[in-house]
């Protein structure tokens, strides 16, 4: 007989340690698929570590990779805190990038002090609208936002392709479906010369701190937490539950939209339909690994980015499929889920009593 009982004292120390244990465990479990692929395991880990910490360039590449993940991770974290299931980060990412390209490729030009905030704002706004739709469908019609925001990803991606073959297409692009480059004044500046790391990273960190302050210290954060933990009680207490959902949707979508802006204006310079390497979806994992804490999102993003960058370099060195990175990241998520369970509950196995006739 298995018995599950809640723990009386949940140690803060244990619950914050869980993601770390889960992350390490997932990395260790990666040995199984590596062995399955016939790779030399220790060597493979060596390549992974070198891929991240081997040089300044590698390390900044990792930070570059973490930048959009911080944004999409925050997008998921803040929405999930309100139990608004925004699974549409991927679509909102593209909406943000598309809006940035729309205003940033010559429609308006001005000094960077004007252009950079402008593309950021427009991108964030577009991303916000991308989640506002599902949130309205949820509050007005009771339509499950999981499904609507998910399906919207597909719609938006097709829309992006359509735009890239139409109005946004670069006439100089040799027929490739890509947009014109963002004007120089709207490009996020590099942080270190000859490295790809850009100001988006600093912006992401700052945003995470602001998100933390909002959730922990403001009335609005209080409302978000209350709605997420118990919407019925929040409503009874006079908190505008639907209004909170809509505001959170706007904020969450905006964060995912900023990820898109950051990628297009900080890294790539122009929009293509493969701008995102699944950042919207990975952001969900990041948020879960972070226990939905905004500051935790920073750490979780660095971890996930390390896995991707490290696995890429390993993949190049010893020829193992780079899908190993997705595998490690998804296993981390499952480990952290299970870890959260064992932090909250005791599992005891009682011996079955024998039926004495």
């Amino acid at each position, binding site marked *: 007989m298995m018995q599950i009982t809640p723990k009386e004292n949940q140690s803060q120390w244990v619950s914050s340690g869980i993601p770390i244990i889960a992350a390490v465990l997932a990395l260790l479990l990666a040995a199984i*698929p590596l062995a399955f692929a016939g790779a030399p395991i220790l060597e493979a880990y060596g390549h992974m570590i070198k891929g991240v910490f081997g040089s300044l360039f590698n390390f900044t590449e990792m930070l570059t990779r973490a930048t959009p993940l911080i944004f999409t991770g925050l997008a998921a974290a803040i929405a999930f805190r309100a139990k608004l299931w925004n699974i549409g980060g991927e679509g909102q990412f593209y909406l943000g990038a598309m809006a940035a390209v729309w205003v940033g490729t010559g429609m308006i030009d001005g000094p960077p002090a004007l252009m950079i905030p402008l593309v950021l704002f427009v991108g964030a706004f577009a991303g916000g609208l991308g989640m506002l739709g599902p949130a309205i469908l949820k509050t007005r*019609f009771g339509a499950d936002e999981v*499904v609507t925001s998910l399906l*919207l990803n597909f719609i938006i991606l*097709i829309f992006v392709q359509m735009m890239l073959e139409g109005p946004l297409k670069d006439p100089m692009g040799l027929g490739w479906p890509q947009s014109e480059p963002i004007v120089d004044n709207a490009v996020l500046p590099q942080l270190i010369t000859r490295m790809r790391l850009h100001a988006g990273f600093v912006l992401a960190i700052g945003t995470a701190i602001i998100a933390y302050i909002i959730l922990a210290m403001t009335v609005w954060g209080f409302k978000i937490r209350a709605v997420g933990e118990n919407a019925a009680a929040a409503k009874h207490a006079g908190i505008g539950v639907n209004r909170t959902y809509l505001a959170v949707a706007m904020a969450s979508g905006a964060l995912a939209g900023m990820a898109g802006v950051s990628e297009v204006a900080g890294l790539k310079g122009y929009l293509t339909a493969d701008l995102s390497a699944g950042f919207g979806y990975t952001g969900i994992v990041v948020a879960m690994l972070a226990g939905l804490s905004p500051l935790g999102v920073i750490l979780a993003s660095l971890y996930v980015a390390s896995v991707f960058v490290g696995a890429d370099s390993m993949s190049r060195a010893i020829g193992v*499929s780079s899908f190993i990175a997705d*595998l490690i990241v998804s296993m981390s998520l*499952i480990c952290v889920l*299970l870890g959260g369970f064992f932090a909250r*509950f005791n599992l005891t196995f009682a011996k079955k009593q024998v039926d004495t006739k």
Partner: protein
Amino acid sequence: MMDILNIFLSDSFWAASLRIATPLIFGVLGALLCERAGVLNLGIEGIFVVGAMTGWMAVWLGANLWGGIIIAAMAGGLFGLFHAILTVIFGLSQHVSGLGITLFASSAASFTYRTALPQVSSPPRIEPFRALDIPILSDLPFIGPVLFQQTAMTWLALFLVAVVWWVMEKTALGVAIKAVGDNPEAVNAQGLSVVKLRMGSVIAGSALMALGGAFLTMSAFDAFFFGMVNGRGWICIALVIFASWQPGKALMGALLFGMFDALQVRLQTEAGAFIPGQVFLMAPYVLSIIALVIVARKADYPRALLTPWFKGQR
């Protein structure tokens, strides 16, 4: 207008509708079984990928087609077991666990595929299910091409609709599954095992979902591509709500969807000159959202959906 009428009169349109509906029928039935027992399975998208990959690979490695089907179902069931352990035994968030399963299943399938076939420029092909050729029936006008020139998997899907309907409506098992999705305590108090019923439903449902994926590589196409599932799993999650968790309506929903999709392809060729093709590509997803919005308010969700149950907890 005449063109549209012609589309509806053509047998190829109706045959295509049924063909497009087939993977969705498997998927909706699977989602129905899971949700009727009270477990949302967002692992569906990943399980489709797993079904597509394993079914295909089994055949590519030498199994016969039905062997491939069985392997795909077992692989799907395995990931269902995983989801069931996380959500039924440990009572973890069904949303998050499901998304985790989708990520895990699709990356595991992709990794396995890449590892088995490291350097191929064009994906290797298998000999897929062929259209049935039934003497007399297949040659009937209209009905022949629409119904009797489908592949065996389409017939399997239709057969499974009947099986699931029979189980849900006519057996004590179905009653118990519906009860466990409504009030697990009722089932427990009558001496049945909530955990076994829920786990069984999730595993069986996931196996069905995997068949939906297997149809893609073993019947609709003859090879495995990354990204070939393309949201079909999510569409099933919308369709099952549209179908009020009833097998008959699930079939109707999938067919309706197949019809619109088939229509969309045909309109695209008709109207492609004026409207960008992408507008039509969006249609299935837009339709799913519309369907969901229409039924959302009156949707009669299984009451215990998303609610974990622990024995003897208060």
